[in-house]
């Protein structure tokens, strides 16, 4: 039983990472309509910015704050410099540009920070005894601060995003663009500015997804986000591409399924999470392509 709960807790922590990345994907998708294939690599780049900040002697949270600003600026810059001018050429072109970005950022990171592994980041206390014992037993159920911190991060970020989008004029403008791009433009909302806002906002959960991935998996390398991107897409698909809450819920479900499926079906074996995620993705596409929280896409012909 404790084993089951511990697996679930870890699954929910990993799921939170997927949810965070899915939240980024959804934030970009809602305004621009792109599936941002470069999001994982952008998260990885942000994580390395934090790494550089930390190795320059900054406290990790200050490094995170600096990296948030830089990452958001880079993301908005990408929208203005690359994606914006491609807007009228259609979505397939945008997708290819994003794949180009994917490859470029990945290789750029390898060139700047090297191809080897670095010491993982620790956003939350990561010592062996840094945790809260929730249940007695053998073994006792201990939730590490990293796991709890991950959960809190997801809740805070989702709330902050909700407040920003639903309680501010800026958020109203963003939602206007999401709901009807042309009309929003006609009433004077800077549409391309809102696209850039979507990109900049997406950089924040992506950064946390990257940093927390680094801590929870104990890795920091230029390939660390490729798998996470697949999980993130599965989560976004499961939740529905136009729903931020759906993205997080989808992430948690994917994390849980990944953790618990091998528990119930031991034949699957460990470390087949990716295959489980893909099967889940295929199942969602077969059964409910709009996801749990998504709207049915209606095209006018």
């Amino acid at each position, binding site marked *: 039983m404790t084993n089951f709960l511990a697996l679930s807790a870890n699954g929910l922590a990993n799921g939170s990472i997927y949810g965070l990345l899915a939240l980024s994907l959804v934030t970009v*998708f*809602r305004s621009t*309509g792109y*599936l941002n*294939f470069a999001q994982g690599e952008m998260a990885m780049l942000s994580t390395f910015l934090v790494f550089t900040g930390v190795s320059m002697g900054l406290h990790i949270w200050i490094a995170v704050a600096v990296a948030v600003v830089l990452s958001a600026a880079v993301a908005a810059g990408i929208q203005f410099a*690359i994606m914006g*001018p*491609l807007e009228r*050429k*259609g*979505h*397939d*072109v945008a*997708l*290819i*540009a994003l*794949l*180009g*970005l*994917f*490859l*470029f*950022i*990945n*290789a*750029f990171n*390898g*060139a700047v920070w090297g*191809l080897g592994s670095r010491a993982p980041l620790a956003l939350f206390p990561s010592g062996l005894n840094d945790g809260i014992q929730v249940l007695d037993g053998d073994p006792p159920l201990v939730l590490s601060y990293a796991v709890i911190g991950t959960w809190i991060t997801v809740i805070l970020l989702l709330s902050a995003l909700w407040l920003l989008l639903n309680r501010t004029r800026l958020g109203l403008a963003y939602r206007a663009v999401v709901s009807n791009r042309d009309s929003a433009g006609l009433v004077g909302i800077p549409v391309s500015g809102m696209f850039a806002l979507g990109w900049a906002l997406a950089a924040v959960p992506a950064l946390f997804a990257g940093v927390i991935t680094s801590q929870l998996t104990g890795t920091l390398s230029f390939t660390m986000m*490729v*798998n996470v*991107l*697949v999980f993130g*897409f*599965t989560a976004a*698909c499961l939740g529905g*591409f*136009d729903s931020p809450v759906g993205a997080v819920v989808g992430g948690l479900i994917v994390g849980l399924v990944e953790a618990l499926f091998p528990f119930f079906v031991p034949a699957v074996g460990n*470390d*087949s999470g*990716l*295959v489980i*995620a*893909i099967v889940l*993705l*295929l199942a969602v*596409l*077969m059964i409910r*392509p709009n996801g749990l929280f998504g709207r049915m*896409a209606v*095209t006018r*012909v």
Partner: protein
Amino acid sequence: MTVSPVYSRRKSMAVLGVAALLLALAPVLLSQTSVLKIAQILIFGVALLGLNLVSGYTGQISLGHSAFFGIGAYVTTILVTDYALPILLTLPIAAGLGFLVGVVTGLPALRLKGHYLALVTLGFAVAFPLIVIKAEAITGGANGKLLTSRWALPTNTPSWMTQLSVTYLVILVVTLLVIGVIRNLGRAGAVRTLLAIKDNPLAASVNGVNLTREKVASFALSAAITAVAGSMYAMTAGVVAPEVFGLMLSVQLLTGLLIGGSGTILGSFLGGVVLVMLPEFTADLIGGSGANMAYGALLIAIIFFMPAGIAGGFTSVSRRLKAPGGRTAAPREDASEAAPRDGIGEMASPQGRS
């Protein structure tokens, strides 16, 4: 409507014949290093012909072609090394398996509008090396697997008739066969159906095209062709390893296709040239991950400045030269005008919009 050179049959047939003849002489005339290089170009060209079928004609983007390439390579390596099958027999088996996996991955994604194919195949591309590593007993795991095969050459052959030369000639023949298959598709109207789907899915389906069936069939055929290319890759490389067939290869293939010019046969082979030569240039300049950086930057530059790729650039230039009175349009506008037919470069259809 002007037709692209794919369809102007007699002239391109002659060009193809001359090219094939010259290429067949390569082992006699050129050094073994050059022969290997041409072989690699042909292999990537065939892989791109496969990718072209799905990305150039139907306008869907596949990230799974690295895995199909890998499937072909592993099928040949395993069947020859462990089961002592004749190496030529593994080519159709690779194609068959590629087709099958193509149907399985394509079916759920291609029923839907939008970029679900890219999504599903992304997962497939990332998972493929991990699956290979996990199935260590069959695939040799992370260390890779050697392909042990030698052609039985008659004694007292001329000195140019090496193992590599024979492999090269086999590759050349297979390449010509694949080109023949694709040209026949064009003749049978299948390619026109695909182009119709790409230009306007709704109109195509109103005209009686079964969108899902056509898309899945072309995707699976595309997977099969790329698997054959992978199979030939194993023949020249002599060793396969899982990390070669990762997601990066897929993005590189897409880059090659776009640089060469998607939607044309010539473009696929120009793309092959880029894929073989570019890493060498960048290795001298930047080294390490330089090639991927160059691919990424090129991919973005190409859709900005040359949406129809190199081959598209040729066609639009030659068309302008032929046009009576000459056109005054600036080259860039011309390229983008040609693109809706030639490349993914200019997909104007509204699919994928939310």
